[in-house]
């Protein structure tokens, strides 16, 4: 099978799409420039994963999603993802927002939580300032450029200064149409000393049909802000995913990532956190399960610019069948980031002989006065642990289940909404057994 490498979408299509979305002209210009750049830019540079035969071009770009009045109209499989009594919720269905709710209280405090296409008109100053300017650049690679050119979904979340939101804010991206592509952008700006917990779910059902997910999240935690970001990616086998989550953390600010990377298709996942400010802090925690013959490339990268900045990477992956995954953990300390602490741990648990897993710990340090450490391992379920559990009468299967559950739990338990956590456990259960 010949794999197309050029997009079947041209300048005219992108122009018309932008007009249909009523976008401001500055945004249309970003798209058109990105489209042009996308032709010559290289694919993301991956050390060990070959993406030449992956599908990046076969998909339906513009698929409407039916509005709903109440979450009761959602099918069970989507409803179970919702937090109990979630006050602040957006449901994206294919490429449209089908449902949106923001509590009056938050809205009165100036919190903005809406469709990116609405935001680029109503809050153009903010979107213009942050959209693919300081976080991810349009021209990083072919896929970031395509992302900007073909953006068909997006969320904008803004927390004004000093606004502390207790209850989590949730978005569910439901790709109901099995061929619908998702070019989705999440732009989250937490202004100084604000606090927020955001959780997103990606879901699709396309085991047979092919499509593409191209996701960029840009998170800005300004001075003193605290952002907790949870995600469960659960695209079905037919979706090729490129997901690029980027954090910018300013002085005294915190960004906590908890990512459940449960896609069944080929996936490139890049999670980069720039610790710009002094005393900035980030935990980048991620779990994944590989099965079938899917190939995945995970990068967790924390770059230290601020003094006394602290970055902790923790990646745990379980590989079964003939799945192959690369886990890159990168801690980079820039010159001048004195007293920085860069720690990382990447562990891969292999459940079959045919599976492959590589953990690549990398520390790049351009400063003397720092602390850093890394741990990496690839191995089997520990037979001594199994012996211990089985010696109490627990079957081998159940013992393995407990060990795997425990292996993934340090990340799963960090997922902010309890129902999402529970659902992630079920997804893991479904994938591992």
């Amino acid at each position, binding site marked *: 099978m010949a794999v197309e490498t050029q997009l079947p979408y041209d300048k005219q299509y992108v122009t018309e799409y932008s007009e249909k979305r009523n976008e401001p002209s500055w945004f249309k210009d970003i798209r058109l420039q990105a489209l042009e750049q996308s032709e010559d830019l290289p694919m993301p540079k991956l050390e060990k994963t070959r993406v030449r035969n992956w599908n990046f071009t076969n998909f339906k770009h513009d698929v409407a999603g039916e509005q709903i009045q109440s979450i009761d109209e959602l099918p069970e499989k989507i409803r179970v993802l919702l937090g109990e009594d979630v006050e602040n919720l957006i449901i994206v269905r294919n490429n449209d927002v089908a449902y949106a709710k923001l509590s009056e209280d938050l809205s009165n405090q100036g919190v903005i939580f809406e469709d990116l296409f609405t935001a680029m008109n109503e809050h153009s100053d903010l979107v213009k300032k942050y959209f693919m300017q300081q976080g991810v650049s349009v021209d990083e690679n072919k896929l970031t450029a395509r992302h900007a050119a073909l953006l068909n979904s997006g969320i904008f979340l803004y927390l004004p200064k000093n606004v502390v939101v207790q209850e989590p804010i949730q978005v569910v991206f439901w790709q109901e149409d099995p061929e619908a592509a998702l070019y989705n952008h999440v732009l989250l700006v937490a202004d100084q000393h604000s606090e927020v917990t955001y959780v997103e779910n990606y879901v699709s059902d396309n085991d047979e049909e092919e499509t593409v997910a191209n996701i960029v999240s840009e998170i800005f935690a300004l001075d003193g802000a605290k952002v907790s970001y949870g995600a469960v990616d659960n695209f079905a086998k037919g979706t090729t995913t490129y997901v690029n989550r980027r954090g910018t953390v300013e002085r005294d600010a915190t960004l906590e990532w908890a990512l459940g990377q449960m896609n069944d298709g080929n996936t490139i996942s890049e999670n980069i956190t720039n610790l710009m400010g002094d005393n900035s802090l980030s935990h980048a925690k991620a779990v994944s399960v590989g099965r079938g013959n899917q190939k995945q490339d995970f990068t967790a990268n924390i770059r230290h610019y601020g003094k006394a900045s602290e970055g902790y990477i923790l990646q745990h992956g379980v590989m079964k069948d003939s799945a192959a995954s690369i886990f890159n953990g990168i801690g980079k300390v820039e010159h001048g980031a004195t007293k920085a602490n860069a720690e990382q741990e990447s562990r891969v648990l292999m459940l079959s002989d045919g599976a492959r897993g590589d953990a690549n710990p990398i520390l790049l340090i351009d400063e003397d006065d720092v602390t850093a450490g890394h741990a990496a391992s690839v191995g089997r379920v520990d037979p*001594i*642990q199994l012996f211990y559990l089985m010696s*109490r009468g627990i079957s081998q299967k159940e013992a393995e289940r407990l060990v795997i559950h425990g292996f993934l739990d340090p990340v799963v338990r960090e997922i902010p909404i309890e129902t999402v956590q529970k659902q992630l456990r079920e997804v893991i259960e479904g994938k591992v057994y």
Partner: protein
Amino acid sequence: MAGSTLEIKDLHVEIEGEEILKGVNLTINGGEFHAVMGPNGTGKSTLASAIMGHPKYEITKGEVKLDGEDVLEMEVDERAQAGLFLAMQYPSEISGVTNSDFLRSSINARREEGDEIPLMKFIKEMDATMDDLEIDKNMAQRYLNEGFSGGEKKRNEILQLMMLKPAIAVLDEIDSGLDIDALKVVANGINKMRSDEFGCLIITHYQRLLDYITPDHVHVMMQGRVVKSGGPELAQRLEAEGYDWIKDELGIDDETVGQKA
């Protein structure tokens, strides 16, 4: 008939090709407490692990039978379900699984489906047993052995013993790493188990534990065999005089076996 019987006959065990047990014979009946003593490196822990089916040990000869059933043919979980229990010298740490969930799964694994222990009954029993063993209540919700001190791990083994109520238990150096107060607490727990329905094989390096748990039979291991058996008075003589007199009596120079020699 009261209780179960564990019969060990001419047991030979290898680890990585090296013979550690060279023909062990022991019979433990319900209602009996046996102590296996001996200096370090004489095969005591190997005996404990081999009975339970530790993956590193290979049985090359001999038999282990529980009420006539061939234990060596059973998987590890089947041995537990048949009524065996091993309190380990170095219990594994399992992250993400709470002590209480683990214990409940273990109890239910030995019961029929549909006959699981009611949650309230379980909690009550666990609370009471933890009180007996002077275990901090928050240990129920901590991950299994994760970050436990040596003493906490040992108490946790005995907590499991008391909750699971096996027919025959093997306690592998349950006293090591315990201070005298903890030792008394653990010994009290084990003494509480005493009944015609319960047999116990206590493996210990020190006489100390036997000050608090009186064994009915005492066996001394050297060179991978039981070289001497007797009653409680044997333990007392060992405490007073050490092991040298046995070595002299039997003409043994080096009592150890395998790599530790």
